[in-house]
């Protein structure tokens, strides 16, 4: 009988290897067999890395043979978003301009995940440079939602989400600038978490908006997400914005329950136009469930947060336009072969190499930073950011965690929003304020749509560096709901 790892937790895999029930090599084989069976219609990966995975598996099996204590993620199959460098892989950001780019060094978060024993299975598809909420903006093809192949998996970390949802990997890493982990988590029925800004080093990830970007995990349960967070957190000399805050064991309090915790439902976010009634109901039901478990539940309004979307669509593109100035056709990336001078080389290499959404964001950001408009747009956005942070600070004097929807709707159809950038941007209205304030947030599957059967996620948010409380609430909700989030595809 061949091993099936598609539903196993990270802990079950590690413990199974430690107990010699199966080897890490068998886990790698089972993983690629699973990928052979379901990757075709889903297209979660830009690149598979079986040689790297089998080398990592061999190291784990050697530890077992030597009787050594296994690290916490030993033999656990992991997907990596294709904006994270790992030597021996390409890092393309799903962009034509980076097609064939060979990683010159390792991303710190990836290195730490692999040091914890994880097997690097492959690089996951994404919206080009992480610009998007559907993974449709990939130069290498759309990723399909394992729950319904005619629908998007969300984005920008849609490949990382779909790979976990479809059981092709146990955990994966994504990056979240305005919701790019949490929103695809909600749309694929996975647990998806953005840590506090600064908790995880950004070294070796291709920058989108440096003051907002943060790496975090996808998993099929809260404990696995906590195990990944344990592995990747902590200060890194290579990223001066990574903090020296102590890193607790994020699994330690998962079973503590919510008795006595103060949980705030963000009431006015439920009144935003575009929120599907079934998502609203699922959010309220989640809060009632937590109340039933002994939490003290209240309500709060965050009226400034609704301006987060506007502030984000200035700050994000402004930082992106600056970060993407490095793509000049000289040091790496696509280069036109017939340039007449260096300006012509820059301009045509960039224009040929970038997709339409990337060009849109660069234009928006460059405009917002240009002479005469800087104060009106960038200055206003940064002041708005201050007010949003202050509003959250006040809310956390009353509550330990806040609860909101993750995404206003379930997974939408491929092509439905592709031609309408503004409606696509609204997908992240609930997740953006947390990036602006640097707060951690997690999306937990909380229901399935009555009409479509598609997953719905709820977002739990805590204070800076208090991921432990957020995870504790998430674990309590997960335990109480007891949902099976296996997509019908698999």
């Amino acid at each position: 009988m061949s091993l099936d790892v598609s539903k196993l937790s990270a802990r079950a895999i590690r413990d199974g290897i430690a107990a010699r029930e199966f080897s890490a090599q068998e886990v790698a084989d089972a993983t690629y067999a699973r990928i052979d069976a379901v990757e075709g219609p889903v297209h979660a990966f830009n690149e598979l890395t079986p040689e790297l995975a089998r080398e990592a598996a061999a190291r784990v099996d050697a530890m077992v043979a030597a009787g050594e204590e296994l690290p916490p993620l030993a033999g656990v199959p992991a997907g990596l978003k294709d904006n994270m460098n790992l030597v021996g892989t390409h890092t393309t950001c799903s962009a034509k301009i980076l097609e064939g780019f060979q990683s010159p060094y390792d991303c710190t978060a990836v290195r730490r995940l692999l040091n914890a024993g994880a097997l690097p299975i492959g690089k996951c598809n994404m919206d080009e440079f992480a610009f998007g909420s559907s993974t449709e903006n990939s130069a290498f093809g759309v990723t399909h939602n394992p729950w319904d192949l005619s629908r998007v998996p969300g984005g920008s970390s849609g490949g990382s989400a779909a790979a976990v949802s479809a059981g092709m990997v146990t955990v994966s890493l994504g990056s979240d600038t305005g919701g790019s982990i949490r929103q695809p988590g909600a749309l694929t029925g996975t647990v998806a978490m953005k840590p506090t800004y600064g908790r995880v080093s950004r070294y070796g990830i291709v920058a989108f908006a440096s003051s907002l970007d943060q790496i975090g995990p996808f998993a099929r349960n809260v404990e696995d997400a906590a195990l990944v967070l344990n592995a990747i957190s902590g200060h890194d000399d290579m990223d001066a914005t990574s903090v020296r805050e102590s890193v607790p064991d994020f699994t330690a309090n998962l079973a503590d329950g919510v008795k006595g915790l103060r949980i705030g439902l963000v009431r006015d976010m439920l009144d935003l136009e575009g929120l599907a009634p079934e998502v609203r109901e699922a959010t309220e039901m989640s809060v009632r469930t937590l109340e039933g478990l002994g939490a003290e539940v209240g309500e709060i309004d965050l009226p400034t947060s609704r301006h987060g979307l506007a502030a984000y669509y200035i700050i994000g593109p402004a930082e992106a336009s600056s970060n993407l100035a490095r793509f000049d056709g000289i040091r790496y990336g696509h280069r036109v072969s017939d340039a007449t001078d260096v300006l012509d080389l820059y301009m045509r290499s960039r224009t040929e190499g970038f997709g339409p959404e990337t060009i849109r964001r660069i234009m928006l950001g460059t405009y917002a930073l240009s002479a005469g408009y800087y104060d009106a747009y960038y200055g206003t956005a940064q002041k708005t950011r201050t007010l949003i942070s202050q509003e959250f600070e006040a809310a956390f004097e009353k509550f330990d965690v806040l609860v909101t929807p993750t995404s206003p709707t379930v997974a939408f159809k491929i092509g439905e929003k592709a031609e309408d950038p503004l409606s696509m941007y609204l997908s992240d209205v609930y997740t953006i304020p947390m990036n602006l304030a640097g707060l951690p947030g997690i999306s937990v599957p909380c229901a399935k749509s009555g009409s479509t059967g598609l997953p719905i996620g709820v977002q739990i948010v805590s204070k800076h560096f208090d991921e432990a409380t957020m995870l504790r609430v998430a674990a309590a909700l997960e335990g109480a709901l007891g949902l099976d989030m296996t997509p019908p595809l698999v």
Partner: protein
Amino acid sequence: MSISEADVRHVAMLARLALSDEQVSRLQGELNSILGNIEKMQELDLEGVEPTSHSIPLRNATRPDVVKPGLPRELALLNAPEAENGAFVIPRIVGAEEGA
């Protein structure tokens, strides 16, 4: 504020993008629509509010001033579209008549 076609062309030059007429025209419409929505932000009373560029309180991040190896040259050139003699190749910048 409304963005004119000339604004789009000016910003494209600042961003080093060579847009076609069709791209300019489409982006003019899209940017006006997006910025029109963003201007809702101006409704907020921001008098006396300090701007935030970084969401987490962070003091200067210093480290000992110790020399460490950087990216080796072969890795820096690994992805170069064109390299020669350990250097990136670019089109001539100084005019031919000025000599090389």
